């Protein structure tokens, strides 16, 4: 995960606390999404960024998992095409793994 984004998520967690925060991912690749989910939960596994060794314990969800939470028309307009394109099941499986 981008080092700046790690810092932004760390700052937001410091400000709002982990209980009121979830991370929504929009990545297109399972491994990369898993890496992002891991970074915000148990810490940066590459030990490169501000979240290295910092287990924020945040829960990450991919946008595909939140279909029922958003306006169906907006989802259709913004996300439905990518549902056809990406390996949705693999992405969700990977992200779920880091939610314990």
């Amino acid at each position, binding site marked *: 995960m981008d080092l700046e984004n790690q810092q932004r998520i760390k700052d937001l967690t410091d400000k709002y606390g982990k209980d009121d925060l979830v991370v929504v991912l929009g990545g297109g690749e399972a491994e990369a999404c898993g890496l992002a989910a891991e970074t915000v939960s148990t810490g940066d596994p590459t030990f490169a960024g501000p979240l290295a060794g910092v287990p924020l314990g945040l829960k990450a969800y991919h946008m595909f998992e939140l279909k029922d939470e958003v306006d169906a028309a907006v989802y259709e307009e913004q*996300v439905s095409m990518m549902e056809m394109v990406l390996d949705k099941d693999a992405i969700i499986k990977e992200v779920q793994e880091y939610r314990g």
Partner: protein
Amino acid sequence: MTFPVLKGSAYTLVHTPDILVHEGKLQEEEMRNNPDSDYLKAIPDHLRSFDDVVGYGPNQAYIGNIHPRDLKDIEQPWYEHPVENASAEGKFGSILDEESFYGCMKAVDMFDLVVLESDYQAKVAKKLNDDPVIGKYWVTLDKLTENPASVEDIQKLIDEKDAKPLYLDGKLVGCVKRAHEFDAALTSDVMFENLVSKASAAYGLAELFAKNELVPEDVDYLIECSEEGCGDMFQRGGGNYAKAIGEICGCVNATGSDTRSFCAGPSHSMVEAAALVQAGVYSNVVVLAGGSSAKLGMNGKDHVKKDQPLLEDCLGTFAIHVAENDGKSPVIRTDIVGKHKIGSGAAPQAIMQAIVSDPLEKVGMTIKDVDVFSAEMQNPEITVPAGAGDIPSANYKMIAALGIMKKVFEKSQLNQVVEDIGMPGFVPTQGHIPSGVPFLGHAKEMIENGDIHRTMIIGKGSLFLGRLTNLFDGISFIVEANDGKTEDETVDKDTIRQMIAESMKQFAASLK
């Protein structure tokens, strides 16, 4: 309406393993922050030889010796299955070695910033003067007779004056000095990148002349579209690479300017070039760009982790000639330009609608009317191990999915459509280099051979990298077979007068 044509193109690579090690930004950062890292130790065992680079399928596709679709017949990983009888000389260009390239950097340096060791300089001067392309088209090779230095002097410049070293097989052969004592826009770091970009682009331009009918004196305008910036601290990024590059090849009648939009730059430049020619402002416009040293080894850590060679070891360059309609070469349809508007939105769906569907629908076409698409043609062997996926394949799937949503295709056809409209990625991850235009050489051949009628070239750019906007960027244009008509079927003045008179007469009659 008569359209401008895609008259010619050239594609070259420069194999630069030592620049990867010392000047690739990722490696540089690692050396600064973690000099004893396992990654740095593993690099030497993961570098490729020049022969490996020449034999690599995607590189052979880039310089035109095989078609990108031929890669489907080569077993993966491609780096373990070299192309038989591969050559550094290609139909569209060639592959240059690092030994020659440092000489190129000195030959394009107008401010005595590149210093080379005496024996090496003499050797590379001869090599470049004898080179059938650079020796013929570069007019500044006399720079290679100036200010040679000893290794001791070079080392002193590195130690005391912050010069950047030039290594060849790990041996110090030169350096690039800073261009100013304290100007942050003219450090040795910046000058190194800019001279790399300029020298490689000038090499690509020379190949354009060598492989096509165009002569340097006939070029009217050059549009440079890399992702670099040159200027001093008062106008960082002021330009102008285009003229600086044209000067090296003796384009004495040309002027030029630089166009920037990250990876979408080349496609914007092609649209601009086509417009300038169609408007009659210029007859011969060249769109060109050199390579990026910063991006060498950009995904190296992942490649080493997966124990594969460091495949990002080449600078890429291209030069494309846009000319007036000759009745033969494929035309650039300036009436079908797709643009991602400021108000288009950043969702992939909105982007593809704006740059793929909208322009086609405007002229009554659908995705089905385009035979082949070329978007971001990054080599998947570079991007997949780094977690970025197969980018060309993802683009083709998006285009096919858009076609399904538009009811042009059935959902069950998705994989077949991807197969039909696409090709494997074959281009090094050099930012602007893989962005749509590397297919133009192959596309011209396919169109002229009658294999395809029409292609869409798509450039996409991640503007957020500049931290000025979160907007996305994308632009597309169509290249198709020439119908042979070179004259506008326009109406002469007398006919217009007659038509107006007739209308006036009818109008007067209606008033009675």
